[in-house]
């Protein structure tokens, strides 16, 4: 039956909505969707896109009593996870580079210096994914302490991973005071958003990994295409689920802190473009919260 096939396809698209919302609204939505698409076998592309974005908006709290509050608190939670994920990934990259260039002899001291903070950072990320806020707070603070006692690692403070736990800590601590009416972020959503934010930061080159991967100055065409496609895909999703924009904002702060510290070690002069990226990060976060407030005030 065409209608059964169409209904099954719509039900797949409706999975972009949270489970609780689907239980409440799926039948009503299906009645409208199937009523408007009689004799079709596939959902219209525009309608499918609108449904996915609608589901993402609901996930970001648009149907909550206080959308701005949900957006802010869940955005902060996801921002902390993104920071910890980026910190861990950068450290793993350093370990891999040490192993590649110096073998076990170079890996051991690097692991000794970075291993404890890496393990604690990953554990804090997992605790946040499982919504164990108190445990995550303890682990983040322990990670900061662990990296603080590392003696004289060259340019240690100039590395984003050093700052990841430091920038994440206030966000994690603030999460202890999350209002009761703000639901937890599900573990799968939390990990998916963290991976998306991480992909954006890495592919756009904010984390400067590709500069290490490609020795020549010329950026390959495929990388330019990948950057544009990633940025477009991220914006398409993040303008619906605006928690992602809040989650990505502290990355700019992280990179700036690392850049300023790194430059400070060499020249004592922070770069002007580094400060601009902080302003951009703050503007993104503030803009998202203001937009949520405006949508809420205007019915």
């Amino acid at each position: 039956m065409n209608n059964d096939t169409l209904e099954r396809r719509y039900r797949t698209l409706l999975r972009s909505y949270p489970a609780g919302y689907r239980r409440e609204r799926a039948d009503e939505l299906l009645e409208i969707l199937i009523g408007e698409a009689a004799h079709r076998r596939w959902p219209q592309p525009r309608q499918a896109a609108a449904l996915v974005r609608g589901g993402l908006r609901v996930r970001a709290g648009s149907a909550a009593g206080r959308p701005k509050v949900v957006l802010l608190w869940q955005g902060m939670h996801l921002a902390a996870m993104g920071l910890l994920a980026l910190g861990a990934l950068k450290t793993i990259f350093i370990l891999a580079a040490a192993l590649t260039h110096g073998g076990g002899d170079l890996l051991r001291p690097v692991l000794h210096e970075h291993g404890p903070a890496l393990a604690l950072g990953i554990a804090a990320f997992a605790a946040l994914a499982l919504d164990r806020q108190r445990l995550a707070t303890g682990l983040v603070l322990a990670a900061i302490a662990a990296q603080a006692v590392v003696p004289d690692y060259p340019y240690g403070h100039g590395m984003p991973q050093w700052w990841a736990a430091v920038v994440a800590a206030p966000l994690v601590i603030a999460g202890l005071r999350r209002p009761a009416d703000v639901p937890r972020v599900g573990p799968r959503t939390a990990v998916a958003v963290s991976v998306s934010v991480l992909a954006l930061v890495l592919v756009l080159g904010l984390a400067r990994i590709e500069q290490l991967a490609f020795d020549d100055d010329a950026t390959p065409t495929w990388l330019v295409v990948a950057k544009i496609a990633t940025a477009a895909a991220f914006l398409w999703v993040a303008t619906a689920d605006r928690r992602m924009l809040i989650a990505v904002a502290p990355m700019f702060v992280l990179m700036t802190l690392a850049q300023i510290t790194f430059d400070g070690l060499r020249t004592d002069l922070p770069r002007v473009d580094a400060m601009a990226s902080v302003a951009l990060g703050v503007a993104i976060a503030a803009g998202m919260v203001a937009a949520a407030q405006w949508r809420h005030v205007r019915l």
Partner: protein
Amino acid sequence: MRSSSRGSLREPSYFVLAALLDGRLHGYAVIKRVEELSGGRVKLAAGSLYSVVDRLLGEGLIVADGEEIINGRARRYYRLTEEGRAVLTEAADRLAEAARVVHARLLDSLFPPSAGAQFSWRTSPA
């Protein structure tokens, strides 16, 4: 009154409330009625409708009013509350007043009152 402190209604919300003036409707009927009332200008997608419905429910301007099973799926009806009716009336009055001001100025620009005229279309003769 709560409505006086609330911001203005956006067009989809305005027409959803207007669609419910004649009585309770289910989602699909609301979409059709909104399109009809707005002269085809406001076409709500399913997700957009329920985004509006959720906000209006949250503000107490509409309520769910009964449910029936059609083709194995639950069909829910919505109706306007007294507060919803008051907010819609206030919004309609505001739009009518705004329209009146513009129409008056448009007529003034088309037929400027001459100096010393005893009569303006807006005022009764003395």
